């Protein structure tokens, strides 16, 4: 009788271990090879630990690797462009979504359910559909020469995150808003002073998702960013496509890791809140 739960326990752990290896192996592969000199990889040491540990590939990926016609200055300027775009768009997009979600949940207006439906519908439409019209609009408005245009698009396309906030605020007690209205606070002040401070868990969730989503975006960045200020995903793509004599796999791995680092860090530092936010409201209501 006692053997049964043990067997299932072993099976569960084995499955988890297999999944862990499956997902960890590429990361291991990237980290290990980014720390080797190129000769070592070409000599056949692909899976093993480096014989000579070296950060040269990282340094090159950051500041010296060639990324096509735009020169050989590494990922650094792409990275900085990404930071410039991602941070304001994530914050503005999340706050904007939060405000919209609050209004949709707590200040119903004529046809507000219709808007909710359109929002949901919009989040199911593939973004590729909008690329061509957007390039035309960008051209007409003169936005194609500045990163601000890309930022605006990211903010507009973060609108469906209002749904997360809307669902979160649905369980927000209506009496609190009534009390604040009687106390003389208006829609925005209630949002800022009473609703927003209670929304931290869901804000963290949305910020992480927005950050990851925008940081990793390739399609909009490729098409809409100005030629001389592209973002890190495009930079990474360029870097890997440029081959001088032979492919510098160690540099490629380092570049990929550099490009992935910010999202990984965001998960590591905010992950605790992420889980908390995802399960918030699951217990009650």
């Amino acid at each position: 009788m006692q053997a049964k739960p043990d067997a299932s326990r072993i099976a569960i752990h084995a499955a988890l271990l297999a999944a862990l290896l499956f997902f960890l192996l590429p990361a291991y592969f990237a980290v290990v090879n980014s720390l080797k000199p190129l000769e070592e990889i070409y000599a056949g040491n692909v899976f093993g630990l480096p014989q000579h540990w070296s950060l040269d590939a990282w340094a090159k990926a950051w500041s010296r690797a060639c990324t096509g016609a735009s020169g050989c200055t590494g990922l650094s300027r792409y990275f900085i462009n990404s930071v410039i775009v991602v941070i304001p768009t994530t914050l503005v997009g999340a706050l904007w979504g939060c405000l919209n979600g609050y209004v949709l949940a707590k200040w119903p207006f004529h046809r507000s359910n219709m808007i909710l439906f359109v929002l949901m519908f919009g989040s199911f439409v593939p973004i590729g559909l909008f690329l061509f019209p957007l390039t035309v609009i960008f051209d007409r408005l003169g936005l194609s020469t500045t990163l601000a245009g890309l930022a605006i698009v990211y903010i507009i396309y973060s609108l469906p995150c209002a749904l997360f906030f809307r669902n979160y605020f649905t369980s927000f007690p209506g009496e609190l808003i009534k009390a604040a209205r009687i106390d003389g606070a208006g829609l925005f002040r209630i949002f800022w002073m009473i609703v927003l401070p209670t929304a931290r868990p869901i804000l963290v969730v949305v910020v992480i998702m927005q950050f990851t989503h925008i940081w990793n975006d390739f399609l909009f960045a490729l098409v809409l960013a100005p030629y001389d200020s592209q973002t890190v995903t495009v930079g990474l793509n360029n870097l890997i496509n440029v081959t001088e004599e032979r492919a510098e796999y160690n540099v490629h791995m380092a570049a990929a890791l550099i490009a992935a680092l910010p999202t990984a860090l965001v998960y590591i530092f905010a992950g605790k809140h992420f889980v908390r936010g995802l399960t918030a409201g699951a217990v009650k209501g």
Partner: protein
Amino acid sequence: MAALTINNIHKRYGNAQILQGIDLSITDGEFLILVGPSGCGKSTLLAMIAGLEDISEGDILIGGQRVNDLSPKDRDIAMVFQSYALYPSMTVRQNIEFGLRMKKVPKAERETIVARVAKTLQIEPLLGRRPAQLSGGQRQRVAMGRALARNPAIFLFDEPLSNLDAKLRVEMRAEIKALHHRLKSTIVYVTHDQVEAMTLGDRIAVMKDGLVQQFGTPAEIYERPANMYVAGFIGSPTMNFVDAELARDGLGWSARIAGLPHPVRLALAPDEALAEGRVTLGIRPEHFHAAQADAPGAVQVSVDLTEPTGADTYVAGRLGDQKVTLRCSPKHPIRPGDLAWFGIDSSAISVFDPSTQLRIGSAGHSTSH
């Protein structure tokens, strides 16, 4: 402080009639209770006074000024909610002064007001805490403090005690009453608890189905209920309803109860123009008193059950073949199975028309509809 007048108020959601013409008015400093079962429209009416719900028809006047089109903050009211509705991210102090900050009251003045309110409600040690760190009773106090700080013309209470345990509820009830005595403020208080209604109110509006069934002082409502609904709603144990035949003789009006040898004499005026026929007598449990078998007007009750509560013993029994509940002194020895004799305090009997359920007789007839 101000008077409140409610004129022919209607509330409709689509085709649903929530309130169908409410007329109420109280003077400055009166404590008005809106009481009724859930769904009777009492909370909707309160929200309309507060300005949180639109008025479909009719007028609300606060201090003589029509407030229909004023936003809640401009109506000079404060409201205490059932859930207390304390702002969770703010301390008690910030909660209490929030309304003052919105009104741009200077900081020094705010501090004076918070100090005074905190002293009144004895919540000074709590000022630095957040609502999550407070007990139910403390939250209730803070919610009242937030209302007090605004010093409004009218206080609105929406079932403020229903989330408290029984003991605390009685304490807070007494405190609210004491507060009203001290502040002489105008209060509108919604409850479904008839004990709260009777103990707190200067005037009570008993509501049902979007209508005021009766509007009067607690004594009027208890002693001269306007209809059988009010009669049954107020009072515990509930009023006994006994079917009888109304008859007039040389001495005036009396009621004949099936199975009893003598008719019960009623306190209706002899010249009252009434039709003889079927009526329902409303007799409160305490209007029976133990009597000798040969006392005039004594009736016999066969006892089914006794429920000693300490101060009183409730006796469930049958008068003729109709069920009644009596409130007796625990000293009076009554056991199930007994046939006991009781006198009825006939001046306290209410008489209702069983078809309209309305009170019969002009004495104390004070309903708004």
